[in-house]
Protein backbone atom coordinates (compact mmCIF):
# COMPACT_ATOMS: atom_id res chain seq x y z
CA UNK A 1 0.00 0.00 0.00
CA UNK A 2 2.82 2.30 0.87
CA UNK A 3 4.45 1.71 -2.55
CA UNK A 4 1.21 2.41 -4.36
CA UNK A 5 0.82 5.72 -2.53
CA UNK A 6 4.41 6.61 -3.31
CA UNK A 7 3.88 5.76 -6.95
CA UNK A 8 0.70 7.84 -7.07
CA UNK A 9 2.68 10.76 -5.68
CA UNK A 10 5.75 10.38 -7.87
CA UNK A 11 4.00 9.88 -11.24
CA UNK A 12 2.07 13.22 -11.23
CA UNK A 13 5.14 15.07 -9.97
CA UNK A 14 7.36 13.63 -12.71
CA UNK A 15 4.74 14.11 -15.42
CA UNK A 16 4.69 17.83 -14.52
CA UNK A 17 8.39 18.01 -15.33
CA UNK A 18 7.90 16.49 -18.77
CA UNK A 19 8.77 18.64 -21.75
CA UNK A 20 7.90 17.64 -25.29
CA UNK A 21 10.90 17.03 -27.52
CA UNK A 22 9.06 17.81 -30.77
CA UNK A 23 10.36 21.05 -32.26
CA UNK A 24 8.62 22.92 -35.04
CA UNK A 25 11.27 23.99 -37.52
CA UNK A 26 10.46 26.80 -39.94
CA UNK A 27 12.50 27.42 -43.03
CA UNK A 28 13.77 30.99 -42.96
CA UNK A 29 12.66 33.44 -45.65
CA UNK A 30 9.82 31.23 -46.77
CA UNK A 31 6.36 32.80 -46.76
CA UNK A 32 4.12 31.10 -44.24
CA UNK A 33 0.84 32.89 -44.77
CA UNK A 34 -2.24 32.14 -46.81
CA UNK A 35 -2.06 31.58 -50.56
CA UNK A 36 -3.02 34.57 -52.65
CA UNK A 37 -5.11 33.15 -55.44
CA UNK A 38 -6.55 35.55 -57.98
CA UNK A 39 -9.91 35.00 -59.51
CA UNK A 40 -9.74 34.40 -63.24
CA UNK A 41 -7.02 33.43 -65.64
CA UNK A 42 -3.64 35.13 -64.99
CA UNK A 43 -2.88 35.37 -68.70
CA UNK A 44 -6.18 37.08 -69.39
CA UNK A 45 -5.62 39.50 -66.49
CA UNK A 46 -2.17 40.36 -67.82
CA UNK A 47 -3.66 41.20 -71.20
CA UNK A 48 -6.35 43.30 -69.50
CA UNK A 49 -3.71 45.21 -67.55
CA UNK A 50 -1.70 45.77 -70.72
CA UNK A 51 -4.74 47.16 -72.46
CA UNK A 52 -5.54 49.29 -69.45
CA UNK A 53 -1.99 50.66 -69.42
CA UNK A 54 -2.20 51.64 -73.06
CA UNK A 55 -5.54 53.33 -72.41
CA UNK A 56 -4.85 55.28 -69.23
CA UNK A 57 -1.07 55.54 -68.88
CA UNK A 58 -0.09 56.58 -72.36
CA UNK A 59 2.18 59.59 -72.54
CA UNK A 60 0.80 63.00 -73.31
Amino acid at each position, binding site marked *: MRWVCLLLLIVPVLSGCYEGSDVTL*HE*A*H*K*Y*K*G*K*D*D*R*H*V*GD*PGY*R*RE*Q*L*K*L*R*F*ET*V*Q*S*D*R
Partner: protein
Amino acid sequence: MARMKFLCDEERCIECNACVTACKNEHEVPWGVNRRRVVTIDDGLPGEKTISVACMHCSDAPCQAVCPVDCFYTTEDGVVLHDKDLCIGCGYCFYACPFGAPQYPQDGAFGARGKMDKCTFCAGGPEEDHSEEEFKKYGRNRLAEGKLPLCAEMCSTKALLAGDADMVADIFRERVVRRADSDNPDLQRRHQGKPWGWDAAYKDG
Protein backbone atom coordinates in the same frame (compact mmCIF):
# COMPACT_ATOMS: atom_id res chain seq x y z
CA MET B 1 6.37 37.05 -65.83
CA ALA B 2 5.17 40.61 -65.61
CA ARG B 3 6.95 42.85 -63.17
CA MET B 4 4.75 45.66 -61.91
CA LYS B 5 6.56 48.88 -61.06
CA PHE B 6 5.92 52.50 -60.17
CA LEU B 7 7.92 55.29 -61.68
CA CYS B 8 7.69 58.95 -60.70
CA ASP B 9 9.03 61.45 -63.17
CA GLU B 10 10.31 64.35 -61.08
CA GLU B 11 10.26 66.63 -64.12
CA ARG B 12 6.49 66.25 -64.37
CA CYS B 13 5.30 66.05 -60.76
CA ILE B 14 3.56 69.29 -59.79
CA GLU B 15 3.10 68.39 -56.10
CA CYS B 16 -0.69 68.40 -56.34
CA ASN B 17 -1.03 65.46 -53.90
CA ALA B 18 -3.87 63.98 -55.94
CA CYS B 19 -2.17 60.56 -55.81
CA VAL B 20 -2.13 60.70 -52.01
CA THR B 21 -5.79 61.66 -51.85
CA ALA B 22 -6.79 59.06 -54.42
CA CYS B 23 -5.02 56.31 -52.48
CA LYS B 24 -6.53 57.26 -49.14
CA ASN B 25 -9.99 57.52 -50.63
CA GLU B 26 -9.87 54.33 -52.68
CA HIS B 27 -8.64 52.11 -49.86
CA GLU B 28 -10.19 53.98 -46.94
CA VAL B 29 -6.77 54.14 -45.33
CA PRO B 30 -7.03 54.93 -41.59
CA TRP B 31 -6.09 58.32 -40.19
CA GLY B 32 -2.35 58.61 -39.57
CA VAL B 33 -1.35 56.11 -42.24
CA ASN B 34 -0.12 57.31 -45.64
CA ARG B 35 0.56 54.60 -48.14
CA ARG B 36 1.76 57.26 -50.57
CA ARG B 37 3.45 60.59 -49.86
CA VAL B 38 4.66 63.46 -51.98
CA VAL B 39 8.18 64.49 -51.01
CA THR B 40 9.95 67.67 -52.02
CA ILE B 41 13.73 67.70 -52.09
CA ASP B 42 15.57 71.02 -51.68
CA ASP B 43 12.28 72.77 -51.05
CA GLY B 44 12.41 76.43 -51.99
CA LEU B 45 15.85 76.20 -53.57
CA PRO B 46 16.58 76.44 -57.27
CA GLY B 47 16.24 73.01 -58.87
CA GLU B 48 13.92 71.59 -56.21
CA LYS B 49 12.39 68.25 -57.08
CA THR B 50 9.12 66.65 -56.08
CA ILE B 51 8.42 62.96 -56.20
CA SER B 52 5.55 60.77 -55.14
CA VAL B 53 6.80 57.90 -52.97
CA ALA B 54 5.17 54.65 -51.91
CA CYS B 55 6.28 51.04 -51.77
CA MET B 56 8.46 50.49 -54.84
CA HIS B 57 7.74 46.74 -54.88
CA CYS B 58 11.47 45.98 -55.02
CA SER B 59 12.68 43.01 -57.04
CA ASP B 60 14.86 42.12 -54.04
CA ALA B 61 12.82 43.59 -51.20
CA PRO B 62 14.70 44.38 -47.95
CA CYS B 63 11.44 44.30 -45.95
CA GLN B 64 10.94 40.72 -47.08
CA ALA B 65 14.49 39.84 -46.10
CA VAL B 66 14.28 41.14 -42.53
CA CYS B 67 10.76 40.06 -41.56
CA PRO B 68 11.11 37.70 -38.56
CA VAL B 69 7.76 36.01 -39.22
CA ASP B 70 8.12 35.88 -43.03
CA CYS B 71 4.78 37.49 -43.72
CA PHE B 72 5.86 38.98 -47.08
CA TYR B 73 5.40 37.38 -50.46
CA THR B 74 5.76 38.42 -54.09
CA THR B 75 2.83 37.79 -56.39
CA GLU B 76 3.16 36.48 -59.93
CA ASP B 77 2.75 40.10 -61.07
CA GLY B 78 5.85 41.05 -59.06
CA VAL B 79 3.91 42.92 -56.38
CA VAL B 80 5.30 42.70 -52.82
CA LEU B 81 2.44 42.03 -50.39
CA HIS B 82 2.12 40.82 -46.82
CA ASP B 83 -0.24 38.81 -44.65
CA LYS B 84 -1.60 40.92 -41.80
CA ASP B 85 -2.62 37.79 -39.89
CA LEU B 86 1.07 36.91 -39.55
CA CYS B 87 2.46 40.41 -39.01
CA ILE B 88 3.46 41.11 -35.41
CA GLY B 89 4.07 44.83 -35.95
CA CYS B 90 7.73 44.59 -34.90
CA GLY B 91 8.84 47.42 -37.18
CA TYR B 92 11.88 45.70 -38.72
CA CYS B 93 10.53 46.32 -42.21
CA PHE B 94 10.11 49.99 -41.39
CA TYR B 95 13.82 50.29 -40.59
CA ALA B 96 14.84 48.23 -43.61
CA CYS B 97 12.78 50.10 -46.20
CA PRO B 98 14.64 53.05 -47.74
CA PHE B 99 11.36 54.52 -49.03
CA GLY B 100 9.52 54.63 -45.69
CA ALA B 101 6.73 52.52 -47.12
CA PRO B 102 5.68 50.44 -44.08
CA GLN B 103 3.26 52.35 -41.86
CA TYR B 104 1.75 51.44 -38.50
CA PRO B 105 -1.68 52.45 -37.29
CA GLN B 106 -1.89 53.36 -33.63
CA ASP B 107 -4.56 51.53 -31.69
CA GLY B 108 -6.12 52.15 -28.31
CA ALA B 109 -5.64 54.75 -25.62
CA PHE B 110 -1.90 54.09 -25.32
CA GLY B 111 -1.23 54.22 -29.05
CA ALA B 112 -0.05 50.62 -29.32
CA ARG B 113 1.44 49.84 -32.69
CA GLY B 114 -0.84 47.82 -34.93
CA LYS B 115 -0.19 45.60 -37.92
CA MET B 116 1.96 47.02 -40.67
CA ASP B 117 0.18 48.68 -43.57
CA LYS B 118 1.68 49.61 -46.92
CA CYS B 119 0.92 50.18 -50.59
CA THR B 120 -0.43 47.03 -52.19
CA PHE B 121 -0.17 48.26 -55.80
CA CYS B 122 -3.97 48.09 -55.54
CA ALA B 123 -3.64 44.28 -55.51
CA GLY B 124 -5.38 43.56 -52.19
CA GLY B 125 -3.94 40.78 -50.09
CA PRO B 126 -4.04 37.04 -49.48
CA GLU B 127 -7.74 37.07 -48.59
CA GLU B 128 -10.32 36.07 -51.19
CA ASP B 129 -10.49 38.59 -54.05
CA HIS B 130 -13.14 41.29 -53.63
CA SER B 131 -14.15 39.96 -50.21
CA GLU B 132 -15.11 42.30 -47.41
CA GLU B 133 -12.22 41.00 -45.33
CA GLU B 134 -9.73 41.80 -48.06
CA PHE B 135 -11.04 45.35 -48.39
CA LYS B 136 -10.99 45.87 -44.65
CA LYS B 137 -7.41 44.68 -44.22
CA TYR B 138 -5.73 45.70 -47.46
CA GLY B 139 -8.04 47.94 -49.46
CA ARG B 140 -9.53 47.53 -52.89
CA ASN B 141 -8.18 44.94 -55.33
CA ARG B 142 -8.10 46.85 -58.59
CA LEU B 143 -5.58 44.56 -60.27
CA ALA B 144 -8.06 41.68 -60.08
CA GLU B 145 -10.56 43.95 -61.84
CA GLY B 146 -8.07 44.57 -64.66
CA LYS B 147 -7.31 48.09 -63.46
CA LEU B 148 -4.02 49.74 -62.49
CA PRO B 149 -3.30 51.63 -59.25
CA LEU B 150 -5.56 54.63 -58.94
CA CYS B 151 -2.77 57.02 -57.89
CA ALA B 152 -1.09 56.58 -61.28
CA GLU B 153 -4.27 56.35 -63.30
CA MET B 154 -5.49 59.71 -62.14
CA CYS B 155 -2.16 61.56 -62.22
CA SER B 156 -2.98 64.61 -64.32
CA THR B 157 0.53 65.17 -65.67
CA LYS B 158 1.34 61.47 -66.01
CA ALA B 159 4.33 61.96 -63.73
CA LEU B 160 3.40 58.82 -61.86
CA LEU B 161 3.36 55.72 -64.02
CA ALA B 162 2.36 52.24 -62.87
CA GLY B 163 2.32 49.03 -64.83
CA ASP B 164 4.51 46.42 -66.39
CA ALA B 165 8.15 47.53 -65.99
CA ASP B 166 8.92 47.14 -69.70
CA MET B 167 6.04 49.36 -70.74
CA VAL B 168 6.79 51.97 -68.08
CA ALA B 169 10.47 51.96 -69.07
CA ASP B 170 9.56 52.46 -72.74
CA ILE B 171 7.56 55.58 -71.93
CA PHE B 172 10.27 56.97 -69.65
CA ARG B 173 13.00 56.21 -72.17
CA GLU B 174 11.15 58.17 -74.83
CA ARG B 175 10.82 61.08 -72.45
CA VAL B 176 14.52 61.02 -71.58
CA VAL B 177 15.51 60.93 -75.22
CA ARG B 178 13.21 63.85 -75.91
CA ARG B 179 14.75 65.83 -73.06
CA ALA B 180 18.29 64.95 -74.04
CA ASP B 181 17.55 66.38 -77.46
CA SER B 182 16.43 69.61 -75.89
CA ASP B 183 18.73 72.64 -75.77
CA ASN B 184 18.51 72.89 -71.98
CA PRO B 185 21.89 71.67 -70.54
CA ASP B 186 20.37 71.23 -67.06
CA LEU B 187 17.76 68.80 -68.38
CA GLN B 188 20.41 66.91 -70.30
CA ARG B 189 22.66 66.56 -67.23
CA ARG B 190 19.86 65.30 -64.99
CA HIS B 191 18.69 62.53 -67.26
CA GLN B 192 21.71 60.36 -67.68
CA GLY B 193 20.82 57.85 -64.95
CA LYS B 194 18.45 54.92 -64.62
CA PRO B 195 14.88 55.10 -63.41
CA TRP B 196 14.82 55.99 -59.74
CA GLY B 197 14.35 53.26 -57.10
CA TRP B 198 14.04 50.22 -59.34
CA ASP B 199 16.93 48.03 -58.29
CA ALA B 200 17.63 46.31 -55.00
CA ALA B 201 17.54 49.02 -52.40
CA TYR B 202 21.06 48.63 -51.06
CA LYS B 203 22.95 47.51 -54.15
CA ASP B 204 24.78 49.56 -56.70
CA GLY B 205 23.71 49.57 -60.30
